[in-house]
């Protein structure tokens, strides 16, 4: 089976899942009686509708080609960084560094993927950007809260640009007898991370009793994490045929994606709440903002990338 055939099979599976989800949502909205239940079902249905749109956008980008996929992730970083900076208290003195982050950093980071320059891609943000941006901020001469402001901007860039860019960077890897199929690895990463979120949400709503971190993230429960995480890891294992991994390796990789995704959701939820918000934004109906949807991917992507690179890539 070539990459396109695998892609069609996975898409068919996802469409079937979405259809089932939409039907379930429709049935639930007829059956629900209580006011609180109605709110939950309404949110569930807008989440499902948003999934249709997100999957359509991703499928089109994936289908058109690698460049479009890279551009799609660049746009994702742009909107995620916009959400992060909107909630972060910055000052007039940060104007230039922020301008550079949006209009120089993001394009350069993704162009490096497009040109396949891995060495600079890996150090461009942690070395060059993290040294130069605070220096530019210092030039503006405002020392009030300088460390806090700089640290917050660096965190924002780290999560929304550096981490997220590791998903399309999977295209750079040169894996034996997997040439020309790397885009499927991006798909695999997103599939496992997002399924894990969805299944944890569903298991949490159905069986959730014991809260893991009630203050940081009230919706995360032990039952949800175990049930949803196991489910997503098993599905990830069963999807080994779209990856360069053996079934057992795929199970290991998907478990890591699930675990990192969970930690990402937890840590970014803490960041979000320390900035005084419940959602990152309102861009994706029912889900909140862009960052609410990709928080798990941002933590899972760099680890998945490096494990695959270390153990499977020839360069």
């Amino acid at each position: 089976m070539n990459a396109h055939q695998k892609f069609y099979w996975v898409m068919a599976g996802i469409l079937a899942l979405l259809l089932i989800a939409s039907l379930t949502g429709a049935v639930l909205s007829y059956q629900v009686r209580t006011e609180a239940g109605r709110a939950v079902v309404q949110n569930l249905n807008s989440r499902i509708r948003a999934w249709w749109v997100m999957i359509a956008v991703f499928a089109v980008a994936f289908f058109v080609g690698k460049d479009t996929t890279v551009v799609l992730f660049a746009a994702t970083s742009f909107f995620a960084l916009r959400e992060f900076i909107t909630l972060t208290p910055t000052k007039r003195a940060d104007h230039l560094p922020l301008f550079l982050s949006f209009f120089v950093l993001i394009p350069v980071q993704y162009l490096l993927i497009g040109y396949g320059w891995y060495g600079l891609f890996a150090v461009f943000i942690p070395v060059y950007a993290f040294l130069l941006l605070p220096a530019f901020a210092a030039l503006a001469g405002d020392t009030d809260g300088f460390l806090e402001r700089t640290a917050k901007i660096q965190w924002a860039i780290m999560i929304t640009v550096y981490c997220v860019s590791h998903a399309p960077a999977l295209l750079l890897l040169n894996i034996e007898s997997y040439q020309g199929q790397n885009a499927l690895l991006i798909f695999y990463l997103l599939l496992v991370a997002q399924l894990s979120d969805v299944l944890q949400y569903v298991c949490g709503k159905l069986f959730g009793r014991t809260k893991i971190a009630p203050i940081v993230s009230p919706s995360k429960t032990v039952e949800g994490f175990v049930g949803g995480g196991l489910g997503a890891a098993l599905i990830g294992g069963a999807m080994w045929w779209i990856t360069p991994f053996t079934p057992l390796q795929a199970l290991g990789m998907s478990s890591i994606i699930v675990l990192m995704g969970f930690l990402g959701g937890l840590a970014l939820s803490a960041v979000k709440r320390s900035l005084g918000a419940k959602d990152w934004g309102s861009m994706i109906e029912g889900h909140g903002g862009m960052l609410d949807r990709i928080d798990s991917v941002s933590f899972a992507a760099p680890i998945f990338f490096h494990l695959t690179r270390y153990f499977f890539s020839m360069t």
Partner: protein
Amino acid sequence: MNPASSLLVGVMKALVGAYPRWQGCEPAAAQRIYFANHTSHIDTLAIWSALPPALRARTRPVAAKDYWDKGALRRYLAIRNLNAVLIERAREGRQGDPLQPLTDALQQGYSLIIFPEGTRGTEALPGAFKSGLFHLMQRFSTVELIPVYLENVHRAMPKGTFFPIPLICTIRFGAPVQRVADESKESFLERARSAVVALA
């Protein structure tokens, strides 16, 4: 709407969101004066982009002639795309009633977007209002006076910077300010200002 205007609105939405929040009124076709806090050159565009297209066509922003009439690009933006009403700020340049272009536009049935502070401030909250709004309120007794608060725009493009950074800006539309019979100018202007501040 011409394609350049659609492009302009598209760019504004991609950069700063310009999401409307109709908190005290609905986006209705009634003739209105929208008055807002003024912190940035993109304020006008932000409010204009937040309006639904149908209302946009009937709404004209009021802009300072000394800024927007300089240079081909600004003039193109202000006159061709925004259909702006340009007014003279400097006392020396004025002949006759400075509010005349505004009254003309209102008589033609247009709604207006105005910034009663007259100039951009550096703080998020508005400073004292100039008296133009009071005179318009007296002359046009049926036009609704809608307070508008621009959130985050002063961070996106503060006074003294030349390019905006992408931040999600929200445009809050409040409930119409009611007219009170025989109210003094100072009292009305302060009440109007408080209506904007209350949305913050």
